[in-house]
């Protein structure tokens, strides 16, 4: 009577998703689907200018429009001490502008009305008198002598610098460079992008004066952080705040920060004593909410003639917009940029980082990324290819020579991370075999003789996913652990709640599979709930691929606590001592008599009906999990492309992905995550970026200007796997949601560069738009498009 784990939807089952049952019927419950009795509607008036002093705001015409209930400006917010709010990076951000506007799209006023059309009309009736100021649109302008001061609201802020930061060993790195046979150099820009979930942000604040309770439905990936932030910002008691994150139409990091719209809707509900709904439009989402990337990267690599890397220097100049609101662990100013080169055995490394304010939207969110890891790995793999080219070495061989070897784990990286597992060489071999590497090189040579430009690009990387541990990782001082609560009912059915928040990753499906694996309860008998701070245990939410590494581990641990109690109940039911009890999936039995046993369901029934003397009744528990380390998935992505020299258009011929994310809970969902990530990688390599004109106007403020790939452009993907279990995770799993977004872009760009390098081209900045590639092919020059950079760095 052994239970077949796959049949009960346990680990390894490609279980069809539970959440799909409502989504395919149009029965999802997204923020805009929530309607409360008496609800009012809020619209935000945004600044048309990137940098301007506000002379005056005249709201009188807005008040005259029938159906308008409230008009809020920064001065009114200030009477409640809410004109400014703290960010997740110890800075401040304007909720509604009082003194100046500092980026195009900044929140200036808000109207609350009977319906959203009236609120929009009233916003148009508000007259704002601006005195335009010069706009700063890149960090080099921001650091120039005599640059206008953006943050004149702050004390002790004489210039536009956000931070200077460094990590690594400068002296050891200098010595490595002194010993180098060859020094390779590379400079590039990782352009600003926007995560752009299809659903924009929104909130419905509902303050009930009779109970003093504030309920806020909100598009947030981290409801508990928001609850704490609201308690601190609005000075409301935390137990009187309930944050409910309903179904999210995508997040990708965009729904982590606290946005002014949330705060304004809360105050509006307190003032009107009515529920107030704010639904952002797409332009508002693209021009004001958390962007990703926008980093200038410069680096050098010290090399020995035999191909070994001796040391790496990196310097980053990051553009944080008008407010430093990166959502990232507080200890690391440029996120985990120093995870770069973690898969290579490099003796020394040093990173310097400068962050600057500009007149652009704030953010710097981890866009499908574990805190700047995307920029780090892109630079790493572009640098590696440049170094291999400089040495005249095969790009695969150069990687193999420098990989951390399988028997070298645990491995301390030059920047201080501890990687713990992997089979890097094997992953590379699987990828090369799948793409037919040797044959492609021959085909490439033949094609080149006929004037055709074929290229192959490799990207291999390990990345840190799943913050904490809590010793090193916190947001605003709150440690980055996570939690799960499991209640097993009398009949053996169960409800599981976690502190994470699914946005398409399928937690409702996979968490139940972990419980099924640990307890033998069929996954269909377990319901999963997340996102309601009144019912879910405290957790740090879902971003940076931390759900499976942290909350998923908590799910396994709470199930083990349940099993430990069930074992005592089993001993009682079987009338033997606990030491004589054995466990197999779903069942305890007497060691000497395997036929004598009780199921987990027998134990749950007894937990409520026949408890041993002295035992607490019931079968429920909570686990808080603080991971001992990050998880380190590895990936090898290989793209082949053909570049049309006449037009600069490049087509993906094949894209092979080899992912090692440890044990896969639900292979179908893992593959879905990888394909989604590869598409975002292709998007960034080929078309997707947010740029600004010299006046700070956002070019890319809607889907006509901000290009996202459709089914037509997106290439097909070929997926392969290698499994190296995580040594410290209770079920051996590692993060996966972001690997392809992080590692993928370099594979595409390296492939295009490989196709054109014989023409003398070393770098074209992303996105590789046809005109840029065409220019590179016809001139033989790099198209880096970088504004002038510091000459003294690194």
């Amino acid at each position, binding site marked *: 009577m052994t239970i077949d784990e796959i049949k009960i939807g346990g680990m390894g089952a490609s279980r*069809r*998703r539970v*959440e*799909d*049952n*409502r*989504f*395919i*019927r*149009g*029965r*999802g419950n*997204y923020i*805009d*689907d929530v*309607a409360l009795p008496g609800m009012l509607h809020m619209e935000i008036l945004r600044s048309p200018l990137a940098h301007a002093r506000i002379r005056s705001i005249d709201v009188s015409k807005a008040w*005259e429009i*029938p*159906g*308008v*209930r*409230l008009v*809020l400006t920064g001065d*009114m917010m200030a009477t409640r001490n809410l004109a400014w709010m703290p960010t997740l990076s110890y800075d401040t951000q304007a909720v509604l502008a009082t003194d100046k506007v500092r980026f195009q799209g900044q929140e200036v006023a808000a109207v609350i009305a*009977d319906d959203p*059309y009236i609120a929009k009309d009233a916003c148009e009736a508000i007259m704002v008198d601006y005195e335009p100021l010069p706009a700063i649109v890149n960090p080099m302008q921001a650091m120039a002598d005599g640059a206008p001061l953006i943050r004149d609201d702050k004390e002790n802020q004489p210039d536009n610098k956000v931070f200077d930061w460094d990590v690594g060993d400068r002296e050891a790195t200098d010595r490595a460079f002194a010993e180098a046979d060859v020094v390779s150099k590379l400079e590039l820009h990782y352009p600003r992008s926007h995560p*752009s*979930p*299809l*659903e924009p942000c929104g909130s419905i604040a509902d303050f009930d004066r009779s109970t003093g309770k504030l309920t806020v439905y909100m598009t947030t990936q981290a409801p508990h952080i928001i609850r704490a932030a609201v308690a601190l910002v609005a000075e409301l008691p935390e137990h009187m705040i309930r944050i409910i994150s309903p*179904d999210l*139409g*995508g997040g*990708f990091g965009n729904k982590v920060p606290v946005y002014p719209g949330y705060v304004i809707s809360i105050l509006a509900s307190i*003032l*009107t*004593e009515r529920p107030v709904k704010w639904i952002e439009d*797409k*332009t508002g989402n693209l021009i004001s909410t958390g962007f990703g990337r926008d980093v200038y990267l410069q680096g050098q690599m010290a090399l020995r003639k035999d191909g070994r890397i001796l040391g790496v220097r990196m310097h980053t100049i990051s553009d944080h917009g008008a407010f430093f609101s990166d959502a990232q662990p507080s200890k690391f100013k440029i996120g985990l940029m120093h995870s770069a080169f973690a898969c290579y055995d490099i003796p020394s490394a040093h990173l310097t980082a400068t962050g600057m304010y500009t007149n652009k939207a704030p953010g710097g969110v981890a866009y499908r990324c574990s805190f700047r890891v995307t920029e780090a790995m892109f630079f790493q793999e572009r640098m590696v290819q440049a170094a291999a080219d400089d040495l005249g070495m095969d790009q695969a061989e150069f990687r193999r020579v420098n990989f951390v070897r399988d028997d070298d784990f645990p491995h301390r990286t030059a920047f201080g991370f501890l990687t713990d597992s992997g089979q890097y060489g094997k992953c590379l071999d699987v990828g090369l075999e799948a793409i037919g590497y040797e044959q492609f090189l021959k085909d490439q040579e033949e094609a080149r003789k006929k004037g055709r430009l074929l290229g192959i690009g490799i990207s291999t990387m390990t990345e840190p996913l799943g913050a904490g541990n809590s010793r090193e990782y916190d947001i605003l001082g709150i440690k980055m652990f996570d939690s799960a609560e499991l209640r097993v009912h009398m009949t053996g059915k169960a409800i599981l709640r976690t502190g994470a928040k699914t*946005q*398409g990753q*399928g937690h409702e499906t996979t968490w139940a599979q972990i419980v099924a694996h640990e307890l033998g309860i069929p996954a269909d008998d377990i319901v999963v709930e997340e996102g309601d701070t009144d019912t879910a245990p405290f957790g740090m939410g879902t971003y940076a691929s931390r759900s499976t590494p942290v909350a998923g581990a908590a799910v396994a641990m709470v199930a083990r606590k349940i099993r430990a109690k069930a074992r005592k109940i089993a001993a009682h039911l079987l009338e033997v001592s606990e030491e004589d009890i054995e466990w197999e999936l779903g069942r305890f039995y007497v060691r000497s008599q395997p036929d004598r046993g009780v199921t987990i369901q027998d134990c749950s029934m007894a937990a409520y009906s026949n408890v041993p003397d002295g035992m607490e009744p019931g079968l429920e528990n909570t686990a808080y999990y603080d991971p001992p380390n990050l998880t380190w998935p590895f990936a090898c992505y290989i793209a082949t492309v053909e570049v049309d020299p006449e037009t600069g258009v490049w087509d993906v011929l094949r894209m092979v992905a080899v992912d090692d994310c440890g044990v896969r809970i639900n292979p179908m*969902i893992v*593959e*879905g995550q990888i*394909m*989604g*990530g*590869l*598409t*975002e990688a292709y998007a960034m390599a080929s078309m997707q970026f947010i740029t600004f004109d010299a006046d700070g106007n956002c070019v890319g403020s*809607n*889907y*006509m200007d901000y290009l*996202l790939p*459709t*089914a*037509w452009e*997106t290439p097909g*993907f070929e997926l392969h796997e290698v499994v190296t279990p995580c040594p410290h995770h209770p079920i051996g799993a590692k993060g996966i949601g972001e690997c392809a977004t992080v590692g993928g872009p370099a594979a595409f760009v390296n492939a295009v560069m490989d196709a054109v390098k014989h023409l003398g081209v070393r770098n074209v900045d992303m996105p590789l738009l046809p005109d840029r590639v065409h220019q590179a092919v016809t001139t033989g020059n790099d198209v880096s498009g970088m504004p002038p950079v510091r000459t003294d760095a690194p």
Partner: protein
Amino acid sequence: MTSLYEEVSVTPVDVPVRRVTITVNGERRAADIEPRLLLAHLLRQGFGLTGTHTGCDTTNCGACTVLFDGRPVKSCTMLAVQADGHSVETVEGLASASELHPVQEGFKEEHGLQCGYCTPGMMMAAKALLEENPDPSEDEIRWALSGNLCRCTGYQNIVKAVMWAADKMRASAG
């Protein structure tokens, strides 16, 4: 309480309305609406059919795709008054009481959705394709769905989902 709330305007709303009659998922429904009301908003707020999502407001993302007299249209950039006297089919009309539409089954079976936000529009576009072309190639599917954006899946499984549905529909058509 501050004085802010006391300044609230409570002037009654007085706007001209127009009566429209639309067949929605086979049922005739009437509404008195402002002429500027968008079809997507009438479906969502007026008729409570919140399965039709709005994503971009500019006819690019396709989350709001419904079938208008059988053809896929983006309901976020169509006025509700334009639908007067016509028929509209939304995601809520796909399944019968007892049975899912093959397109719905295909999306679940082939993991053609993640966050689910694009899914209703994607499925309506797919249904329109399959009614016109019961045996589409991969390229034909990708082209037919190129007016609908998905940020999660990378489309490959959506293509497989539509093929799954096509297979099932052809099999049951015998």
